[in-house]
């Protein structure tokens, strides 16, 4: 439900991005006739029964797959552990390179595939692990089998993990005033602008998520207080070096959203809490 709405808070597409998006969908034969140009970012949510060819593209004359159809938008994988493991592993190349290459005996085709991967899963097969109102009936081996379908390397490439508890009745019925997408999008656009200015002199780096270690050291300086916080988090939670880098990058983004020049400890602590999965299963 919420994932479907991610494209609405993305920065608006440029004409080049829109043309690229329209092109891919036109080649795949998915364009609605009267439209001409598609101005909205794609949201693709393939079912868990999808094959690897369906995900990255394929065929004798290769056609774009879901990762390319989600180019400049969102690829949402619901119930992630239900996907076949080999299907998930083919995501690695597009996640790293923003493109996917399909090689056949006679030809080799490269499709663009720069997308935001969003995924959702239950904490265990029955879905009630860690739930205060229901008891979970899954055995530890069952849970282990369930979560082990997602490989460490894939999880390592995911920056932000969150727990989404069931919505309380009051919230469900209440008329709580929440922001609309335009307000959020404005903040996002401002944060992106700061990043573009920061990386103006760097080649092929446009967003915090793309920072290599050298730039992390340069742009993610933290205060002594923050240093202590991070040290506690990494040692107590047993976080990996990759997770450490990701925390810094995400903290940088949170500071950007706040229009702050330096990363304060509140930015850092928010970033640390986005590593819930490292803590629950893989620590």
């Amino acid at each position, binding site marked *: 439900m919420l994932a*479907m709405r991610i494209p609405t808070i993305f920065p608006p597409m440029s*004409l080049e991005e829109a043309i690229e998006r329209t092109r891919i969908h036109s080649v795949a034969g998915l364009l609605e006739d009267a439209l001409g140009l598609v*101005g909205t970012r794609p949201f693709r949510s393939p079912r868990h029964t999808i094959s690897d060819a369906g995900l990255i593209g394929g065929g004798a004359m290769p056609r774009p797959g879901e990762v390319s159809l989600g180019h400049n938008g969102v690829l949402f994988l619901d119930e992630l552990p239900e996907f076949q493991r080999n299907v998930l592993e083919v995501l690695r190349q597009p996640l790293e390179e923003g493109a996917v290459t399909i090689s056949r005996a006679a030809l080799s085709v490269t499709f663009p595939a720069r997308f935001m991967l969003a995924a959702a899963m239950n904490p265990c097969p029955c879905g009630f692990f860690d739930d205060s109102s229901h008891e979970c009936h899954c055995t530890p081996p069952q849970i282990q089998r369930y979560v082990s379908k997602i490989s460490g390397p894939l999880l390592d490439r995911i920056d932000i993990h969150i727990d989404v508890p069931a919505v309380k009745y009051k919230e469900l019925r209440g008329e709580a005033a929440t922001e609309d997408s335009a307000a959020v999008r404005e903040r*996002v656009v401002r944060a992106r602008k700061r990043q573009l200015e920061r990386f103006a002199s760097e080649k092929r780096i446009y967003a915090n998520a793309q920072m290599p270690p050298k730039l992390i050291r340069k742009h993610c300086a933290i205060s002594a207080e923050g240093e202590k916080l991070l040290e506690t988090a990494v040692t107590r939670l047993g976080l990996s070096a990759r997770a450490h880098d990701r925390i810094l990058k995400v903290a940088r983004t949170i500071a950007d959203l706040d229009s702050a020049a330096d990363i304060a400890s509140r930015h850092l602590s928010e970033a640390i809490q986005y590593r819930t999965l490292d803590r629950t299963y893989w620590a």
Partner: protein
Amino acid sequence: MLSKALSAAVFGIDAYVVEVEVDVGSGRMGDFNVVGLPDIAVKESRERIKSALKNCGFEFPNPQSVTINLAPADIRKEGSGFDLPMALGILGCQGTFFGKPLNGQLFLGELSLDGSVRPVRGTLSAALCAREQGIRNVVVPEANAREAAVVEGIEVYAIRSLPQAVDLVNAPESFKPVQLDARALLADAAQYPLDPRDVRGQQGAKRALEVACAGSHKSFS
């Protein structure tokens, strides 16, 4: 008699120009061959072309032979977009265009048995390719016209049927290119029917998605 028309084929998401060469009367009587690594949809176009020509009141050059080459001949061609240039090439060989060359325009379109033109895939890529190659006029099925017209610097003509395409070649001055302001279109098209506001609660998740979008991070819930 030889006639040439231009078309385009898609490779990946890029397109390249395909020259459709039609020769009537050089082989065995009654033959209709398509060469240049066509796939099944391209081979089947022979049947569509024969019927479309007949049903539009044009003549198929029976009992002479027809040979069609899709150049460059070493890349596999797929799809039904060559129907229109092939049919026009055959008509060109029979003098329908009074000797006018066909290679000033790029043609795309699938033919229906009654001669109407159906939409094809990858029109936008083909239009971009035409601009790169300096081909000014692009003739596409009406349903794909807006998509192609997004490309600036070329003239896009929308056609509905094979006879209309013949008229376009013979009397281009009576047709108007499709006009489109891509930037205005983009502003109109960038509207989403959904809003995160409609989802109750889940403030934590919403905040996380905001962070993810702002820094181009990947999220997981």
